[in-house]
């Protein structure tokens, strides 16, 4: 039998909305690099607030930038601690009944790696930079680029739009720290 070039609307919608290549679809904020916008049709019905809440940025307008910029000032830091890198991303929550990716802003500071959420304004995850290892893991989802943070007490799966940037940020500052303290941060690719 020969294949038929026929498909119905439902199939076309399925292909175009659920499949196909995506560029950082719901991961917009990035420190450097090219900004990309992408939302799914599903997100169309969500309001601006909801989209910001869940990381589906609809635009690069002033208000959304300000909303994100304002988060920085709220993240409680130690005296002398500096934010070195900031990017939108997720943390895998495997404990409890609901297994999901929790969105937030990943911050690499001079002391810690932190996932910060604006509402209700809390640190969802933090670990000291000491003895932290990062492993790349195969993506369980087309869009997500996943990393495994391995620290002395355990490990957590995270995802970011740009793993390279995150790794570089960690490595870059690791060098400085190593120079300062003689401690070493191991990055594996």
């Amino acid at each position, binding site marked *: 039998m020969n294949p038929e070039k026929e498909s119905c609307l439902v199939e076309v919608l399925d292909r*175009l909305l659920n499949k196909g290549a995506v560029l950082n679809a719901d991961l917009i904020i990035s420190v450097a690099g090219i900004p990309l916008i992408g939302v799914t049709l599903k997100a*169309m019905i969500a309001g601006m607030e909801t989209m910001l809440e869940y990381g589906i940025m609809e635009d690069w307008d002033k208000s959304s930038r300000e909303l994100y910029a304002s988060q920085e000032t709220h993240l409680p830091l130690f005296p002398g601690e500096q934010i070195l890198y900031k990017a939108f991303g997720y943390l895998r929550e495997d404990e409890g009944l609901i297994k999901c990716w929790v969105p937030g802003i990943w911050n690499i500071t001079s002391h810690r790696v932190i996932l910060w959420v604006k509402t209700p304004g809390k640190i969802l995850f933090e670990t000291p930079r000491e003895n932290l290892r990062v492993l790349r893991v*195969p993506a369980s989802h087309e869009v997500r680029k996943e990393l495994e943070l391995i620290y002395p007490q355990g490990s957590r799966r995270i995802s970011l739009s740009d793993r390279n940037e995150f790794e570089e940020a960690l490595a870059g500052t690791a060098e400085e720290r190593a120079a300062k303290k003689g401690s070493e941060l191991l990055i594996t690719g």
Partner: protein
Amino acid sequence: MVKEARYLYSVARTGHIAQLGSIGIQENNVYIVPYKDIAAIVHACEAKPYRTEDKKLAEGWVLEHSYVIDQAMKMFGTVLPFSFDVIIKGDDDVVKEWLCRDYENLARELLRMQGTAEYSIQIYCDYDYLEKLVLANNQELCDLKNRIEKESKGKAYLQRRNLELKLKSLTYSETGRLADQFCSEIKPLVKELKTAGRTSWTPEKYRDKKLLATYSCLVSDEAVKKLGEVLEEINGKEGFYVRFTGPWAPFSFVRLSEAG
């Protein structure tokens, strides 16, 4: 209206500047932005996503996007299709910069997809026919059925219920076994196979049938004929029906995130 962004339809292998005409979403002019031997197929738009509360309008946009990909396939052969509403903020130079930055990834995917296309296979079965077949081939159930006919009314009811449940469970495992068998016949002929989720839509002529399996397959051009023959064989079995559609752009198989 400032068109400081580019709506991305697909990436193709071509080094020449070309115009595809006003075939884009909302009749936008679609053109290509080349970098080395690859190119992005885009239209200029505002730096905001396409969104609307109007379902019909949104569906129209998706169909227009799909049409551009079809046209691009005709012009350039293999393309890497992008999802609806992927927009690059910036002008053609920024698109070029992205192509340059992601060149290795994109070129690798284009090479992997070269000479292939995605095909969709749905296998339906006539459930009643299959049930009869299962019953006929199972001595235990046949005996039970014969006994029921001789039983008193009340006892017969309970035993009939028992027979129905057993038959249903056996027929279900038979559908699973058949799906596995068909899959193993298809698999050697395709480069990649994905078992797709249930589609919410069934063509009219299969409405009274049961969907046994749905596969998305990445098939090389020369293997399509052989695959068609295998599917024809399945389609020829009594009680089985195959829907074979394509070729589509490799929507289910394009991977741009780096491996590992």
